[in-house]
């Protein structure tokens, strides 16, 4: 493991959420790679069966067993897992109840389907329960106590989007009315204890747009209210500044001289037709408007006073190489 200080030393479970469309799977993948780049053994898990991880890494679809999907220098590795409620329940029943015939019967009677799709809360307890198990797993199954080496140095969870994540993580509350006592209850209690410990943080991914930023503010307030440890804010798809602030002001107020622009264009042999000059000025005005909006949103993010990371917009879209580039950026900014 590296001796370099990062913002999240001691954290073993990184939960990544964000509004749909902000690139939370991409960021979760980049964070996993960034951690692996420090020589760590990392598990990257998804819980919504979307196969976002396998698509991001361009590997065969993940199953409900862990598979290595990437490796990094210094012996770091990323394993991928698509947590599936049914498999998690059967595994759970097997481990804790040693179910033989009854397991098959439960399946036959539709009880497994019932528990994993209809019974509220149970599904989430199972999904996050599997993540909990992975965080606590030891390299040597028989080793116990604080000295035992964990199977994974870090687990990154590509969590449900902002609209659902608080409910998803708040498993205790979800099962509170349903299971007041019993194994589901105690499982929920252990999960909650881990989620609220300093081992866990929830990072939020956003774009510099109104709705994603609003949802970021909302989800952080909600997480805070439930006592979940809040991590950093990752601002995704940041475009670099092109115009100077002077030019931005001029563009926004339509105070750029058409004549000067036309003269400049003609000098470098671009045919300065009215259409081209007007087009350029319109684009500049739109650009200035967008930049002004982005600045307002960036201010709102800064007001949260959380560690903030900025990932560039990749013009070619995100592929396996793009993820590595983003991972480097996160390392450089101290997230991993």
């Amino acid at each position, binding site marked *: 493991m590296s001796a370099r200080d990062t913002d999240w030393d001691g954290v073993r479970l990184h939960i990544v959420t964000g509004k749909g469309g902000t690139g939370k799977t991409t960021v979760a993948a980049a964070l996993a790679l960034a951690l692996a780049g420090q020589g760590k053994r990392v598990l990257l898990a998804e819980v919504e069966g979307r196969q976002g991880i396998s698509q991001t890494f361009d590997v065969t679809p993940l199953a409900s067993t862990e598979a290595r999907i990437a490796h990094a220098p210094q012996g770091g590795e990323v394993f991928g897992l698509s947590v599936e409620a049914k498999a998690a329940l059967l595994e759970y029943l097997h481990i804790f*109840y040693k179910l033989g015939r009854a397991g098959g019967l439960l399946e036959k009677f*539709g009880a497994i389907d019932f528990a994993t799709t209809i019974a509220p809360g149970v599904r989430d307890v199972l999904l996050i329960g599997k993540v909990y198990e992975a965080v606590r797993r030891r390299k040597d199954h028989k080793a116990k106590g604080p000295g035992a080496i964990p199977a994974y140095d870090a687990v990154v969870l590509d969590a449900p989007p902002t609209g659902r994540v608080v409910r998803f993580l708040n498993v205790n509350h*979800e099962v509170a009315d349903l299971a*007041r006592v019993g194994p589901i209850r105690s499982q929920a209690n252990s999960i909650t204890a881990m989620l609220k410990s300093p081992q866990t943080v929830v990072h939020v991914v956003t774009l510099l747009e*109104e709705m994603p930023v609003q949802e970021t503010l909302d989800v952080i307030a909600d997480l805070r209210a439930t006592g979940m440890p809040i991590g950093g804010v990752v601002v995704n798809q940041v475009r670099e500044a092109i115009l100077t602030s002077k030019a931005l002001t001029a563009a926004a107020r339509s105070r*750029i001289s058409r004549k000067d622009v036309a003269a*400049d264009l003609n000098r470098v042999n671009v045919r300065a037709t009215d259409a081209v000059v007007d087009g350029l000025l319109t684009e500049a005005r739109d650009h200035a408007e967008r930049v002004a909006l982005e600045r307002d949103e960036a201010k709102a993010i800064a007001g949260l006073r959380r560690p903030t990371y900025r990932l560039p917009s990749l013009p070619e879209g995100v592929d396996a190489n793009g993820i590595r580039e983003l991972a480097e950026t996160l390392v450089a900014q101290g997230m991993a």
Partner: protein
Amino acid sequence: MAPMLDIDALIDDPQTRIVVCCGSGGVGKTTTAAALGLRAAESGRHVVVLTIDPARRLAQSLGLTTLDNTPRLVQGIDVTRGGSLDAMMLDMKRTFDEVVQAHATPDKAEQILANPFYQAVSSSFAGTQEYMAMEKLGQLRLEADRDPDNPRWDLIVVDTPPSRSALDFLDAPKRLGSFLDGRFIRLLAGPAKAGGRAYVKVFSAGVNIVTSTLTKVLGGQMLTDVQTFVAALDTMFGGFRERADHTYALLKDGGTAFLVVASPERDALREASYFVDRLDEEEMPLAGLVVNRVYRVAAPGLSAARALSAAEQLGDEESGSSSGGSSGVSDTAAITQGLLRVHAVQAEIAARHQSLAKRFIAGHPGIATVEVPAASADIHDLPGLRAVGDALAGR
């Protein structure tokens, strides 16, 4: 070349009674639904827009400041053509409560509403939003058809929930059906429902193992709650499923049009592909694809490469002239240089969007498509929605 999706022909056709907007999260589904509803209303139709989870300011622009699960008239629209626009936000818990109250006796309804299992199912079960969106759609349609001579609405525009798996709402009736017909439910509902004495005899050994295991795993209290819930809901199950089936049939009907909404990004278009295939599989009437937030350049005559090289030339010139001390020239040249770079970046994004859209179209020949240009600001007022409506109509 894909056929152009003619939105005006679609919303002006009195045969079109329901428009369903579907697509993955973050592609502008709600905005599209609202813009479409507004455009149809201003062209003279009586429209109700059912939104699921609108952005706060968009909701405000539609006058949706209270979440009361009832359609409210949207103020400030152009009514010169005799149309009207109502809008509502879905409250899934309240919709579910209303269904219970409408289909169970008062004391039974009270019993169901107080059951913790019901409370969890109605407010947090992952599929409830989809079920309730379907339920609400059915209710709105019923309300619309109540007086055929003077219908309250002649067009319902629905924004679908951002489902974790695409098109979950299409599965809602089926899932509900298999849930209700499931052995497990019949088992919980009591032996009488499980098919008579003989059946019970054969299976009783198995049943006992199942119930005792469940008690062990879930705890006895939860099982009791589930049983009470199932028993109480039993009376209204039939009606529930019947209406879900009815709504499903309504969706397949010629009066319904599905619009798949996507943004020109790889992931969103992949989801859109899935939607298109699923709709096709279910034989649902797909009207076309809306590609939202497509970058367009205002100076299409100038390529990105040409703009960049021109910007570089100006840059060289600038460094030459600033050493000569003439700052006036370099000032405007710097601005022009910036304009060219802004253009180059936008032209590159526009080209990428075009190529992604083209690939989608090539993979789905024959699907009518319309592109909506990216707006430089977020949309949260009626003029903004009107502009989106114009773009949807290709104007």
